[in-house]
């Protein structure tokens, strides 16, 4: 098998294991770590996590697919996740989603041909007071307008 954690990830994994009374409880943190290391959770990544923790890949897959943040398919370098819940919708999220989709030439759920952007719509990000909100990888961009999102896309392009 070709996939393996870097030394740093391996160290983080060992530290994580020590915080729990059993290996099962380390499944979520290890999947997070694997997604960071490998970009997304390919079949090989699932197999790797399964071997590390001593479960079958089918079991790990069953857990992973329950949670929306684990990507079983590759995502773009920048994962644009725009909140579509009520507070954001009241502040113009629908227009923002249409605008970004048009600008990038993709529909929500799709990745640009150059692999740079994936556009997703997501549920409430817990930041409704600064709606509309978009998460890009680990960061939140808040109180967005068409202009500010244009500026952001220009910087990321």
């Amino acid at each position: 098998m070709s996939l393996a954690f870097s030394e740093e990830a391996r160290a983080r994994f060992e530290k994580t294991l020590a915080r729990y009374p059993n290996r099962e409880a380390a499944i979520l943190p290890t999947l997070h770590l694997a997604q960071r290391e490998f970009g997304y959770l390919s079949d090989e990544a699932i197999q790797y996590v399964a071997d590390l923790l001593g479960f079958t890949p089918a079991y790990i897959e069953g857990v992973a697919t329950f949670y929306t943040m684990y990507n079983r398919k590759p995502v773009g370098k920048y994962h644009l996740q725009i909140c579509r819940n009520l507070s954001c919708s009241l502040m113009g999220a629908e227009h923002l989603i249409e605008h970004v989709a048009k600008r990038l030439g993709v529909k929500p759920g799709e990745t640009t041909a150059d692999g740079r952007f994936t556009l997703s719509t997501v549920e409430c990000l817990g930041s409704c007071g600064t709606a509309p909100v978009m998460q890009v990888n680990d960061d939140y961009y808040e109180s967005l307008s068409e202009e500010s999102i244009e500026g952001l896309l220009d910087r990321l392009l």
Partner: protein
Amino acid sequence: MELVLTTHFGNDRYRHVDTYVRLGGYAALRKAISMPKEEIVEEVKKANLRGRGGAGFPAGVKWGFLPKDLSRPRILVINADEGEPGTFKDRLIMSRGPHLMIEGIVITCYALTTHTCYIYIRGEFVREADIVQEAIDEAYAEGYLGRNILGSGFDLDVTIHLGAGAYICGEETSLINSLEGKRGWPRVKPPFPASVGVFGQPTIVNNVETIADIPWIVTHGGEKFASLGVEKDGGTRLICVSGPVKKPGVYELPVGTSLHSIIYEHAGGLRDGKTLKAVIPGGSSTPVLRANEIDVPFDFESLQKIGTMAGSGGVIVIPEGTCMVRSLSVLMNFYAHESCGQCTPCREGCGWLARILRRIEDGEGREEDVELILGVCDNMLGRTICPLADAAVMPAQSFIWKFREEFDQHIQEAKCPYGNRF
């Protein structure tokens, strides 16, 4: 006005232990470890501190459900999943005052003789989790966590566990499964977490804000905290105001502050000359109010009396000109997406509600659709493992009861009178 939590939230260094201690932090912990444990629990009972996660269960009473004997180690879990649409206060505590939560954790664990605590933070809050981890590391370094805390002989370990994008994991038994590495399926109760929780151990689950209130209660006494609020519902609350108001945000206000003044004084009223149409007072799962129903004190009992709930304090302001069918459709898509699928009435019901609303909004509603929605709601209420099904029914029923004419108009005119947009 007396503030319990947010006094120093404007100070960027408050998230660090040195500043926190300089401004009086961890003094409550020093006091707590010199008190008999039962006395701490007694103060929290006297405080009338009701859970800030949504259900409003009195914290001190919940703690009392732990089995009396200490033979099985107990676990404290902090619910930082913050997924209820309209709610964004725990994020503020974690990013501006993480040591308030940590000090609350240490005091609570000391009082309940618990040596393990997990903080379950929603997976999207990567930055907040980093801030909390830094604060935890500082607390270990300064002897507020770890072995023999402040020389008391008391040991405590705190670990952050990140969620991975599932609203249902905010429900406490789902959260427990998720913490154990499983799918976040809610568990059938009983047994309740206080007897069989994480890893089979007696477990208390409390919201971030609930626990962050504990240091103040220890410092000032339960009675003082109770006196800030109303009868049987003490203290202040972090009220989140979203929607097109002039000053959206989190406001720390005494329990019992009127909803009208929350919207018009604190949040500055509606912006751009808009007028108020409706308010969802306690997060998306609480029944909607008409504009003329907001002269009500924001506390659990007062809101319950008028048929809604204080929930997690997420006030969503809906202006005139907003389509209520479209708004409800957005919410039902959310519940349909988040139902874990274990119970047929919830899995099928949420899906049905989302689909029927979509077709009404798209001008394809049938004459019987409104009654159909109410019928689906009846079949969901109280028939499921966890309250998510009820959480979907509350907005669905109330939107129809209070704005029925809009639903009928969509169906009669076979189109959305608002042009199918927000």
